């Protein structure tokens, strides 16, 4: 395919790899975090770490929205789904996320009416087709999916669909990055910024990372060459003593983001004072709930929720994986008690979770061999 070669070309990969090696200062080590699970996927699928010199380490960030849903929220959703007149809807990714009392799949097997949808608009349609039932959409995702939820609520309001509501779990990428920057056990030299989140929020919101923390961030595309080029750009900034926000993915991400999408979020949603992230704990101003003006579409206000906080299973080390402190295979239950079929932690559920990505591409065995031969 002619088009694709542009992003895949082996020769370009090699020359980028050489450029990356040339930009590394001897004796200096570089750790970059790829925030988005899509990048994690690309890195393991294409074995990109093999193209990088030993001085450069890539660590995974918290950018898989399924991975950061805390157990208590899954339990709350199942509580809603168990009401006899409720139809619960969500994306397929949500079905196997373990809560304190099982997953959506378990609840469905026990008789709850839980349906997979492709779009929140499909959930709204189910509501219109079932006027005698209450239809709830379990909304998850970063800024990439939040506009879709917001637009759907606007539509429900405009059409007067009264039996539709949203259980809002949208989280924000900027506070997560800030929490990681403020966490004492992490030393990072720069970030590979999320591509599709940035298509919504633009590049401006990352400015504080460069300004206040002195670290560069490059918004990157998802092709292997995009990721390599972003590493090259990060190293270039560091070599010149610069820390800036740059956009490697301008072919999709406008610098200013998508204003219509941001307006929709701003109209329908409000910032929560704090929200619990699985593995990362409570982070202030890190998630969205529905605004007061749309309270009648807010499942949290319609239903009486247990709202019980459930501690992560003892064996689970997703928190360390989400902060990039631990490699997935360093978790004690990785690949044994925790697999994509029987996930203990959330990083194993979605294909964008770091553990699932490692598991699926068999990288962990190679990593282990490398570690073993090193020590």
């Amino acid at each position: 395919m002619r088009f694709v070669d542009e992003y895949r070309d082996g020769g370009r990969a090699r020359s980028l790899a050489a450029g990356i090696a040339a930009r590394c200062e001897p004796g200096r080590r570089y750790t970059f975090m790829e925030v988005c699970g899509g990048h994690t996927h690309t890195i393991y699928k294409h074995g990109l770490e093999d193209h990088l010199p030993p001085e450069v380490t890539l660590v995974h960030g918290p950018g898989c929205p399924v991975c950061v849903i805390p157990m208590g929220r899954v339990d709350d959703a199942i509580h809603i789904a168990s009401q006899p007149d409720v139809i619960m809807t969500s994306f397929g990714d949500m079905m196997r996320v373990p809560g304190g009392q099982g997953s959506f799949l378990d609840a469905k097997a026990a008789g709850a009416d839980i349906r997979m949808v492709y779009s929140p608009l499909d959930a709204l349609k189910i509501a219109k087709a079932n006027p005698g039932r209450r239809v709830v959409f379990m909304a998850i995702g970063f800024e990439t999916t939040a506009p879709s939820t917001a637009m759907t609520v606007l539509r429900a309001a405009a059409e007067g669909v009264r039996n539709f509501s949203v259980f809002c779990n949208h989280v924000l990428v900027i506070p997560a990055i800030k929490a990681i920057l403020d966490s004492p056990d992490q030393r990072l030299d720069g970030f590979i910024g999320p591509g599709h989140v940035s298509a919504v929020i633009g590049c401006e919101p990352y400015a504080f990372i460069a300004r206040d923390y002195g670290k560069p961030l490059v918004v990157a595309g998802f092709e292997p060459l995009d990721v390599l080029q972003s590493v090259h750009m990060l190293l270039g900034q560091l070599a010149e003593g610069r820390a800036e926000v740059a956009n490697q993915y301008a072919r999709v991400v406008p610098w200013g983001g998508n204003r219509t999408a941001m307006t929709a979020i701003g109209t329908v949603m409000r910032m929560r004072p704090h929200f619990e992230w699985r593995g990362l704990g409570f982070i202030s101003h890190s998630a969205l709930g529905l605004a007061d003006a749309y309270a009648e579409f807010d499942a949290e206000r319609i239903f009486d929720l247990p709202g019980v906080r459930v501690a992560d299973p003892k064996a689970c080390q997703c928190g360390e994986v989400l902060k990039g402190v631990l490699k997935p295979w360093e978790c004690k239950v990785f690949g044994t008690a925790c697999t994509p079929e029987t996930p203990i932690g959330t990083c194993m559920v979605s294909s964008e979770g770091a553990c699932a990505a490692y598991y699926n591409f068999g990288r962990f065995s190679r990593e282990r061999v490398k570690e073993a031969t090193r020590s």
Partner: protein
Amino acid sequence: MCLGIPGELVAADADHPDLAVVDVGGVRRRINVALLTEEDLQVGDWVLVHVGFALSKISESEAQAVLDYLEGLGPAYDDELDALRGSDIT
């Protein structure tokens, strides 16, 4: 869910200016294009579709590159296409 799938706009929806029909890997589905009102979309344009909404306008070459990337994903892309097939936005 996080996957953005490229789709080619094949028809506008005269009754619903917010909606348009896209072709995604041979699957034709109605999606919402209201987030791209500033782009003045035309039939033949390519967009990146997230959960039923066109989020950004992209070039044809970018669309091909993303499609190729997605096909390489295997099950994750198949699941997403299956979900899209089951979608019926009106």
